[in-house]
């Protein structure tokens, strides 16, 4: 493995690990706060238990997110010093702002987790809201930095060096809006579905358990709403890519020949040598319609770009299909749940529905990983689109395969531990005393009738 490949793999592995915890860190506080808010309104103990249980899980995941994020901040310099030296002044700003978002997030999370007995219920809820808000902001700021790598702005080039740096313009780069929107919604969708899946699984074995019913309801509302929005926001992303990174669009659609009324390839294996995509289902005009909202639009194919500027079309195309496939399935399940709720006015809990929710549990996280693969691999060979090549950013340090293997092993170990700990948490599923359980279920039925 050469050093460039080792460095890229280490970066990819660290980010792929971190993003799971980051997505949960963005969305989970909202779920906790929703449960706690419902407790304050209804005074049903089960909501309080739920908020506390979720908080415990979040604490574990948050800590892993914080330490893996610290690793990332250093890795930017450890692996890509030339990139940071070049871009730090232009794009350091969102990272600095992110620093303050981390502070508020960590401070109020500390208060939230350890302060149940120490502050008033209202102040406690407010602390939770602060965590939810700063979690979103942390994500938004760092994705802005990433969007800048895709559509650099806010500086001019003079002999290859950046001059007239304008950090604000860099933050308001053309991809910033679509990417931050898409990522934030993705965090809610993925976390909501993951949580819903866990509780649906428990509910299938323990039908009347009120704890899991309430949990499922909250997770489905948040995750489902996000899943319904995600295709719309993805459309915004796709059109931004079509405009600003035509090579990436061509690669993710496995589109080789420039043509008007370009077809959409579903599935298929791009063959870079022959310049065509084999075994795909082609929908005439589909790509033109999606990328430019015009069925006759001309879409540039890979053939228009120098061969050494193509990203790996196979990976990018496959990852894109995976994301869109997951997104479509999740949106369908959300729609199914919504229709069922609308017709019966109660928690959809049909056997098949619960089964679908269980199966969908990992889909959001998979889509997030796939989506980032599209974004990052699709940008290659550039680290800053059109400005700096990834190879030029690499540290002169040799033997990078050693840290890559070390961190990989470390993260595999951590991941195994996290799964094991969460399993122990979930296994200790709370049961209300049978009395209360019966009364609560009855009350629920009454409210359904009334």
């Amino acid at each position, binding site marked *: 493995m050469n050093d460039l490949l080792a460095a890229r793999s280490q970066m990819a592995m660290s980010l792929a690990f971190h993003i799971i915890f980051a997505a949960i860190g963005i969305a989970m506080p909202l779920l906790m706060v929703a449960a706690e808010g419902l407790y304050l309104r209804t005074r049903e103990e089960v909501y309080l238990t739920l908020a506390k249980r979720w908080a415990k899980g979040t*604490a*574990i995941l948050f*800590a*892993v997110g*914080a*330490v*893996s994020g*610290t*690793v990332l*901040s*250093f890795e*930017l*310099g*450890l692996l890509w*010093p*030339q990139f*940071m*030296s*070049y*871009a*730090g*002044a*232009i794009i*350091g*700003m969102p990272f*600095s*702002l992110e*620093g*303050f978002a*981390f*502070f*508020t997030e*960590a*401070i*109020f*999370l*500390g*208060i939230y*987790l*350890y*302060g149940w007995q*120490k*502050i008033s219920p209202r102040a406690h809820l407010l602390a939770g809201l602060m965590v939810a808000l700063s979690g979103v902001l942390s994500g938004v700021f760092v994705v802005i930095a990433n969007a800048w790598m895709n559509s650099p702005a806010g500086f001019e080039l003079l002999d290859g060096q950046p*001059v007239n*740096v*304008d*950090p*604000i313009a860099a933050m308001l780069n053309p991809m910033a809006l679509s990417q931050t929107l898409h990522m934030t919604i993705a965090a809610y969708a993925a976390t909501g579905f993951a949580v819903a899946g866990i509780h649906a699984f428990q509910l299938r074995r323990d039908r009347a358990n009120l704890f899991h019913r309430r949990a499922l309801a909250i997770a489905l509302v948040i995750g489902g709403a996000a899943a319904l929005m995600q295709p719309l926001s993805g459309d915004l992303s796709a059109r931004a890519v079509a405009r600003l990174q035509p090579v990436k669009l061509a690669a993710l659609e496995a589109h080789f020949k420039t043509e008007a009324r370009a077809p959409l390839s579903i599935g298929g294996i791009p063959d870079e040598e022959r310049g065509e995509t084999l075994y795909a289902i082609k929908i005439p005009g589909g790509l033109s319609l999606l990328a430019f909202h015009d069925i006759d639009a001309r879409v540039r194919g890979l053939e228009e770009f120098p061969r050494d500027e193509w990203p790996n079309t196979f990976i990018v195309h496959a990852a894109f299909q995976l994301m869109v496939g997951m997104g479509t399935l999740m949106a369908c399940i959300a729609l199914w749940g919504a229709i069922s709720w609308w017709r019966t006015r109660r928690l959809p809990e049909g056997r098949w529905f619960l089964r679908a929710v269980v199966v969908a549990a990992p889909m959001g996280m998979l889509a997030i990983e796939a989506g980032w693969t599209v974004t990052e691999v699709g940008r290659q060979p550039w680290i800053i689109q059109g400005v700096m090549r990834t190879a030029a950013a690499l*540290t*002169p*340090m040799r033997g990078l395969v050693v840290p890559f293997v*070390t*961190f990989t092993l*470390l993260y595999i170990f*951590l991941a195994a*531990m996290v799964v094991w*700990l969460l399993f*122990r*948490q979930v296994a*200790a599923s709370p049961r209300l005393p049978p009395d209360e359980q019966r009364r609560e279920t009855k009350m629920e039925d009454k409210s359904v009738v009334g």
Partner: protein
Amino acid sequence: MSAELLAAGAMIVALTFYALLGGADYGGGVWDLFAAGERASKQRALIADAIGPVWEANHVWLILVVVILFTGFPPAFAGIATALHIPLTLMLIGVVLRGAAFTFRTYDVQRDDAQRRWSYVFSVASIFTPILLGLTLGAIASGAIKIENGQVAGGFVRSWLAPFPLAVGCFALALFAFLAAVYLTLETNDTALQDDFRKRALAAGVVVGGLALLVFLLSGAGAPSVRAGLTRSVWAWPLHAATALCAVGAFWSLWRRAYRWARWCAAGQVALILWGWALAQFPYIVEPDITIHSAAAPHATLRLLVVALGLGALLLFPSFYYLFRIFKSK
């Protein structure tokens, strides 16, 4: 004052907070390992309660140092991260293991063997990480990192695998353990526990003194220009006097069981040591090739950075005050 000086000052302030708050969290891990006697489990519980609500917030100071460095002084960040790739990577492993092990131990639902294993990982990582942090700072101060035309000359090992950086690493560990022991006397009303940590603080204080002397002696060969700054500048002797005053004050108040005073003196001592180093090295970020001015980002960036840091501080300090008022007013 120019924006780059303000940004550099903010970086040292953030580093100071990291040492005073985050450092003490590492020190807590040290005392977890050395918990002994009939109250060993009580000592451990006290440490865990003291660290639990605050360590993640305290840890963010380190992130702030890094982001100010790469936003305000990008070539300095690139140079440090390149030359010190190995110790920084090792330090990160320590950061990951410390945080993860602490949390896993706290939140595991069942109390069994697993807990003890996490405890062990947590405390060993708490010893390992500060040594590497100190070592990194020692290497930066030593003048052994040579940057020529933006490239690091002189290898990836020699600058940090030397007596001076290693001594600074041990010194950092001793300081953090000292801080933690002093702070912990204020975390409980149980006088027996207080006494346990008082003894530890006094012992750690002696070690700090010894290592300070060692670092100073080694600096003659190991970091000549910092040594020159620390002995020959006009501010040097007042600074040494103030540091010594804090150190004596800390001992005296520990002896008299005036723990509140001891806390301020110990914190003052650590802060003054850091500022002494920063002043001795001024205007260099990395001796002898990178200065605050040569590494400074364009003016637009620095101005914005300083404004953001100022506004951020307005948000941050009240929040921190609230956090500490809830958990640290015993």
